[in-house]
């Protein structure tokens, strides 16, 4: 891994991705075969297919990669990963790119980042996810119209008792929060 | 041979005493020995003092049977003394030959041994609440008392002084002692430096049926009742007969018990344990590193004890490693 970073001299983005993806060392073996791009259920809607993203990482196109919508289209179906003939953990690379692009403020799909943020904020607070909370916070502020359209479905869910009105909080929330706090702290130190 | 009877000395250093008994076990023939030799020094049986030996001219003892390894300064002194005084110095029995069981203490150092004996040992502990240790020098009203220094490492006889012959075994078998002694009487000794015995291994004398060897699992002796006919090693028992010098008549395998290697290695084999390890690992039936490790770890939890039971002190490594920073304990 360090060898790649060393020998590539100037182009550090590849090294950065490798560093931040478990199993990322495999990236260098990409054949550009397109199995991933061909497999992706959202491939048609991506600005760049996963294969192209890997080519761009290779070409040190950091800015472009971190602002493309590709990772935000990824729904973690893992087809690419399981089909890649070079055992490259593509889905995990997508996660890595999401993290980097959030960190750099380059994330294009603000809906997805907002959803993610809402979700984890609630998790941090209650220790459980809370759909109504997500719906109201995320949709109300981000997509009021879609909330309107969601109406009948939400009603359906609610009447069947499939949507809770109040969040549940785990008993030992302090413990979870201590763990999260420590993780944040360690994360800061290492990155 | 001259008219005067040849002079014989026997001495006992770091050993269990079994070898002395073995000499007596030669039975009535011991009388022939007594008749043939002039026993000039044998602390357990004959009343002669060290002082008497010191006064003998150098080289005046014809044969000295020396058993036991060298653990203390006194033993070292005696080894040097008897070396000077003797024409032929024989390392008698496994302890003098290879260190034997006392040599296994080389897995520890002096400090640890003293701790075990004087601090944790049940024999001494209630009587030794102050945790006293034997010191080489003790001041008493009458003056200074000296005790032998207890060494950190047990050495074999030939690591201390030059040795002419080796008589292996723990203890040597009566017939072999007699044969050796007879050879001395008759002046038919092998070239100096030899081990008296056969130059092949116990398997040669073992009547068990053997096949090509492939071992999937090693067993400790209590785990299985081995078949009486076939080679014990093939049944997974750590039989050292493959590497142990023949001469005992395969005593142990004959009673369904694996050879533990008391006769030491053959000529040309420098390190008994290394050869045992090499031979056994060669025939482990697996090519998977994890499985191999498992077979070894489960079957041979104590490789040093299994392969160097008699020869640790004589092995190439001789003792357990003392990390650089650990100072050897001084008894001062």
């Amino acid at each position, binding site marked *: 891994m360090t060898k790649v970073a060393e020998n590539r001299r100037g182009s550090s983005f590849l090294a950065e991705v490798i560093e931040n993806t478990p199993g990322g060392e495999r990236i260098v073996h990409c054949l550009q075969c397109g199995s991933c791009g061909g497999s992706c259920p959202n491939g048609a809607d991506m600005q760049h297919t996963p294969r192209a993203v890997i080519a761009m990482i290779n070409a040190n196109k950091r800015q472009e990669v971190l602002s493309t919508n590709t990772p935000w289209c990824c729904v973690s179906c893992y087809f690419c990963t399981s089909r890649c003939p070079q055992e490259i953990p593509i889905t995990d690379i997508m996660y890595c790119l999401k993290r980097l692009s959030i960190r750099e403020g380059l994330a294009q799909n603000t809906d997805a980042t907002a959803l993610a943020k809402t979700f984890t904020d609630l998790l941090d607070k209650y220790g459980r996810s809370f759909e109504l909370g997500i719906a109201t916070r995320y949709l109300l502020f981000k997509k009021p119209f879609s909330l309107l359209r969601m109406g009948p479905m939400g009603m359906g869910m609610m009447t069947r008792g499939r949507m809770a009105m109040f969040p549940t909080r785990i008993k030992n929330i302090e413990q979870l929060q201590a763990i999260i706090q420590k993780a944040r702290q360690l994360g800061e130190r290492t990155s | 041979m001259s008219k005067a009877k040849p002079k014989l000395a026997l001495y006992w250093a770091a050993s269990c005493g079994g070898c002395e008994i073995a000499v007596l076990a030669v039975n009535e023939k011991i009388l022939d020995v007594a008749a043939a030799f002039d026993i000039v020094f044998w602390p357990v049986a004959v009343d002669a*003092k*060290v*002082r008497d030996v*010191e006064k003998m001219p150098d080289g005046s003892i014809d044969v000295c049977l020396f058993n036991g390894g060298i653990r203390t*300064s*006194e033993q*070292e*002194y005696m080894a040097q003394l008897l070396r000077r005084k003797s024409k032929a110095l024989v390392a008698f029995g496994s302890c003098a030959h290879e260190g034997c069981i006392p040599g296994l203490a080389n*897995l520890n150092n002096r400090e640890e041994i003293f701790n075990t004996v004087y601090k944790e040992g049940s024999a001494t502990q209630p009587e030794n609440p102050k945790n006293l240790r034997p010191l*080489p*020098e003790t001041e008493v009203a009458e003056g200074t*008392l*000296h005790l*032998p*220094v207890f*060494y*950190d*490492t047990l*050495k074999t006889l030939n690591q201390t002084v030059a040795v002419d012959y080796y008589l292996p075994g723990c203890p040597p078998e009566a017939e072999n002692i007699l044969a050796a002694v007879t050879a001395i009487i008759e002046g038919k000794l092998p070239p100096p430096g030899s081990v008296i015995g056969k130059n092949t291994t116990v398997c040669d004398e073992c009547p068990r049926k053997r096949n090509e060897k492939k071992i999937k699992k090693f067993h400790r002796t209590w785990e299985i009742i081995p078949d009486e006919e076939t080679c014990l090693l093939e049944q997974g028992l750590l039989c050292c007969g493959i590497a142990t010098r023949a001469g005992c008549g395969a005593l142990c395998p004959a009673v369904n018990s694996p050879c533990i290697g008391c006769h030491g290695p053959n000529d040309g084999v*420098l*390190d008994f*344990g*290394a*050869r045992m*390890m*090499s031979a*056994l*690992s*060669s025939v*482990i039936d*697996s*090519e998977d*590193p994890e499985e*191999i*490790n498992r077979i*070894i*770890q489960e079957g*041979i939890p*104590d*490789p*040093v004890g299994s*392969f160097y039971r008699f020869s640790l002190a004589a*092995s*190439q*490594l*001789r*003792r*357990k*490693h*003392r*990390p*650089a920073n650990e*100072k*050897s304990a*001084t*008894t*001062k």
Partner: protein
Amino acid sequence: MSDTVFEPKILGFLCNWCSYRAADLAGIARIKYPANIRIIRVMCSGRVDPTFVLSAFAQGADGVMVAGCHPGECHYVDQNYKAMRRYAMLKQMLAQMGLEDNRLRLVWASAAEGQQLAEAIEKLVADVRELGPLNWPKSWEENGHRLEAIQNIAREHAEAMEVPQ
């Protein structure tokens, strides 16, 4: 060699077909690695008798490398598996003898892996350097007053024997 940096002495037993050639290749490719290793050529890693390894330590080596063809690629079909098993056994025994794990290493290097072999050597040298000298032969020496003690004992013996009952 200066006193400040400990320069370990490493002995390498390399098989004739793969590892020795990997070392040749490292040379041809001018790959650099520390000069601490001294290489002994054996026909096969299966020739390496544990006696050799112990002997190296006993004679002052601080580290030992055994290298052979990759499993499945042995010039002698499968003798490197025997080396693998001996190594496993030897490791176990050395641990019991208090020898640090990092002093002995088994490496697979094909004739094409000059770079890998060089890296393995570099790593072993670094690891052993960290451990410090082994100094095995010194382990046998008594730190202290051996000769003097013998003389005291001799004197005491003499005195004790002379004193009449």
